[in-house]
């Protein structure tokens, strides 16, 4: 796309981009959603009409400029329209995580003082009604799915289509007001407010202006040559900045189509049907998919397994080089082409990656093996490094310069510097305005020159000039003897094993490292089935001696590989235990984006950490758990603590010798 970035062209807001698209791309698809088994489509012209009707309806309900409108639901066109309609009337959309518990929602709704909410269904309506009494300013709720809601008190409750109908009916009454409000929007007006999940403390409301969103979308679209022909599948939480950039920012800038899955469970099927050309997923999604492929290959016949293994070995050897356009021998190319016909092509198609031109992963480090697997299949999977506060993009990997241990070069228009302590700072057009109602945090994060602290420690690699992130700056610590402690590095090594879903490594200020391990129910369950191991619950499987043995062998392998790294050989895991429950966002142990909250875990499982260090071989513990509907319960278990073999001191000598 060759549009210039000037806001003066009248493209200073998302609603302005919508007007342009409705004119230029009128008949091209803007949204698709699978419903009743069929992909329903809205063109840009139709989407504009839907959004206008909703915006008029919002005016009819009395939305003022500067009001906050909460949006709670899974990825559906209606919610994207709601956000743009809110912007059109001068209000600020605030998307929330739809799986958040009622009191988490109460905090955000209270903090931003939302007067209106657009929600999905009875479940969300019930949650908001539950907390309504705590919210003095809250007035109206609009819902999309009427099922089960017919008998509710409809004084303050409205159907989505009803609001649109009222808007259409009152067209002449409000259209002038709508136009006037829309025209007032410019680069400086607020585009959206997103709450960061935060691995510590309460969520913060990140205020992003139109400049932030549009500039970040423009430059990143140009970086990857995104065009109006892209297809994306919107399935990541709408409250997450990435979805806002991909499904609204870039989609509106380029004019491409956003596809919404039928339900959360059908995502994999829908992915395959749509075959996106531009795809984003956090490492966990890629991990899960790879695990599933491997599980199914374990069940395959011997010939198929051999075919898969031998061609995958070949793909690992030459696939990434072919993808990067490097020199590869003719015979290897022929073999790769054959593999593509037999294995890679069908596999990519099954995974829904048959057409992916640009794929990104970010949020956490991705295991090298996982990364290589997808790239060797010929999927252009790259990494980016970003934050809500940066409107996603801080660094990106250019095509042909992709590696698993770096996160690429500074995104266009972004400056990066690294301070003495190793912390990464950035500033650019996408840099957020401020934290809502939180000037102290704003000040401590963003300095007067616009530099923002990422909280991550990293360095630029000599030669390539790519940024390498080591760990969260606050997670990197020192062992008791003063050596570097980088928990995430070790955890990522552990998590590479399909059987290990999550790991938490302890060792800061201690003389040795220990770990909590979460098994992957899918992978371990399948393994148990094949080995005739019976189990009735997650807890029972997690505590099975054979499972512990298997995990122990993984830990020991990791120790061996750590021993080869002179910088981190002392981070070998001496003792570990397998947790009796899965770490869960509902229990506050992880963020909604599934990052481990170390502080919370260390505190909550204090007894277990203690046991890891006091030499005991088992411990009885009781843990409070929160069910999906917010009720609480407790589970208790006796956990076995195991010692893992560590590779002795050789590393020490190496360090000493150097």
């Amino acid at each position, binding site marked *: 796309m060759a549009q210039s970035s000037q806001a003066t062209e009248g493209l200073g807001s998302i609603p302005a981009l919508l007007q342009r698209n409705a004119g230029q791309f009128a008949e091209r698809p803007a949204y698709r959603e699978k*419903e*009743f*088994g*069929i992909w329903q489509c809205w063109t840009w012209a139709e989407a504009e009409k839907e959004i206008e009707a909703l915006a008029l309806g919002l005016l009819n309900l009395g939305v003022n400029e500067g009001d906050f409108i909460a949006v709670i639901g899974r990825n559906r066109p209606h919610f994207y329209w709601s956000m743009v309609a809110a912007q059109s009337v001068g209000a600020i959309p605030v998307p929330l995580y739809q799986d958040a518990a009622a009191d988490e929602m109460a905090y955000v709704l209270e903090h931003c003082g939302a007067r209106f909410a657009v929600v999905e269904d009875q479940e969300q309506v019930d949650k908001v009604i539950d907390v309504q009494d705590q919210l003095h300013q809250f007035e109206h709720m609009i819902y999309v799915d009427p*099922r*089960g809601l017919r*008998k509710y008190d409809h004084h303050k409750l409205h159907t989505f289509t009803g609001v649109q109908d009222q808007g259409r009916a009152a067209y002449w009454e409000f259209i002038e007001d709508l136009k006037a409000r829309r025209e007032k929007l410019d680069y400086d007006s607020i585009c959206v407010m997103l709450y960061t999940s935060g691995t510590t403390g309460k969520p913060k409301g990140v205020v992003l202006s139109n400049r932030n969103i549009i500039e970040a979308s423009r430059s990143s679209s140009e970086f990857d040559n995104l065009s109006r022909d892209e297809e994306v599948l919107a399935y990541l939480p709408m409250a997450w900045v990435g979805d806002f950039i991909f499904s609204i920012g870039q989609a509106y800038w380029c004019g491409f189509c956003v596809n919404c899955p*039928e*339900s959360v469970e*059908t995502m994999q099927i829908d992915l395959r049907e749509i075959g996106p050309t531009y795809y984003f997923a956090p490492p966990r999604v890629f991990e899960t998919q790879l695990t599933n492929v491997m599980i199914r290959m374990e069940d395959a016949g011997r010939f198929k397994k051999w075919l898969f293994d031998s061609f995958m070995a070949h793909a690992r050897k030459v696939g990434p080089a072919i993808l990067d356009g490097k020199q590869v021998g003719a015979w290897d190319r022929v073999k790769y082409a054959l593999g593509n016909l037999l294995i890679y092509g069908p596999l990519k198609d099954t995974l829904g990656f048959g057409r992916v031109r640009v794929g990104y992963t970010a949020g956490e480090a991705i295991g090298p093996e996982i990364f290589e697997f997808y790239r060797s299949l010929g999927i252009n999977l790259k990494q980016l490094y970003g934050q809500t506060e940066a409107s996603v993009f801080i660094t990106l990997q250019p095509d042909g310069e992709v590696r698993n241990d770096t996160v690429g070069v500074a995104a266009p228009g972004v400056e990066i510097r690294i301070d003495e302590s190793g912390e990464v700072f950035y500033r650019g057009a996408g840099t957020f305005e401020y934290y809502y109602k939180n000037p102290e945090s704003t000040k401590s994060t963003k300095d007067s020159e616009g530099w923002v602290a990422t909280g991550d420690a990293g360095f630029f690699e000599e030669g390539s000039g790519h940024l390498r992130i080591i760990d969260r700056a606050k997670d990197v610590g020192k062992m008791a003897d003063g050596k570097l402690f980088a928990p995430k590095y070790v955890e990522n090594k552990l998590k590479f094993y399909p059987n290990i879903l999550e790991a938490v490594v302890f060792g800061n200020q201690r003389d040795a490292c220990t770990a909590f391990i979460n098994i992957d129910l899918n992978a371990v369950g399948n393994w148990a089935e094949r080995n005739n191991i019976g189990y009735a619950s997650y807890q029972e499987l997690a505590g099975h001696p054979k499972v512990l043995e298997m995990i122990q062998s993984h830990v020991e392998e990791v120790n061996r590989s750590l021993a080869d790294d002179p910088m981190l050989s002392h981070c070998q895991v001496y003792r570990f235990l397998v947790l009796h429950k899965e770490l869960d966002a509902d229990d506050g142990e992880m963020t909604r984006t599934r990052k481990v909250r170390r502080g919370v875990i260390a505190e909550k499982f204090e007894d277990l950490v203690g046991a890891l260090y006091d030499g005991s071989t088992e411990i009885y513990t009781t843990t409070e758990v929160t069910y999906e509907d917010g009720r609480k319960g407790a589970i208790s278990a006796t956990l076995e603590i195991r010692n893992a073999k560590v590779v002795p001191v050789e590393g020490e000598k190496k360090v000493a010798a150097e």
Partner: protein
Amino acid sequence: MKDMDADSYTTEDGRRIGGVVMEMRNITLRFGGVVAIKDISFDIREGEIRAIIGPNGAGKSSMLNVISGFYNPQEGEVYYKGERRPPMKPYQVAQQGIARTFQNIALFEGMTVLDNVMTGRIRQMSSGLLAQAIWKGKAEREEVANREQVEKIIDFLEIQHIRKTPVGRLPYGLKKRVELARALAAEPSILLLDEPMAGMNVEEKEDMSRFILDVNDEFGSTIALIEHDMGVVMDLSDRVVVMDYGKKIGDGTPDEVRNNQAVIDAYLGVAHD
């Protein structure tokens, strides 16, 4: 029972319950010398959730089989929509608009969920075998229209993700839901559910209860269900018939039934003379 709208009323939660659609009068069913049902009478009103409960062997399933036409009682009459129903074959009963699910799941295991639910539309298809095979004109239009209806039910029962999965690969709880979907696809005027929660865990039971209430609310279906889990029944139903040893020992709202001495005895156990 000719005056169907005579005493219709509205429940506390705003559902309209109509007049009697089905009435059992003095039904007695024997298998040789064994009396399975002895002189039982009760009625089912339009739009209500009517439960038949009782301990094991009380004759609940036999009663359901009488309603569905699988058994013909030796004595007594069945009145449906105000008219006496002559002895019938189950398929004739189905044609009258009565659909059912089974306690021990009777789906086509090798077929997909979608195909299974489509079989529920058999009554709505009139084109012949040859026309179906050629699949042009009416046969095609018919299938499209039926598929649309089926998709609405799939959406309603939230089984989109297994639409193309063979039923044999599904876990028990989901199979139960597919059976409900197939019964719903027939757009029945009375829906018979034979132990819809049998063998389910608490969470699955809650889900199933939700679906039953939603079906009743959304489609206005009259539902008659058999269940021996008292807790579930009391929360779901408008009226309950309690059976024990083939006899009716209670009939009324859940509260009335709960306080009925005969029912308490049957469930808590009392010495039989």
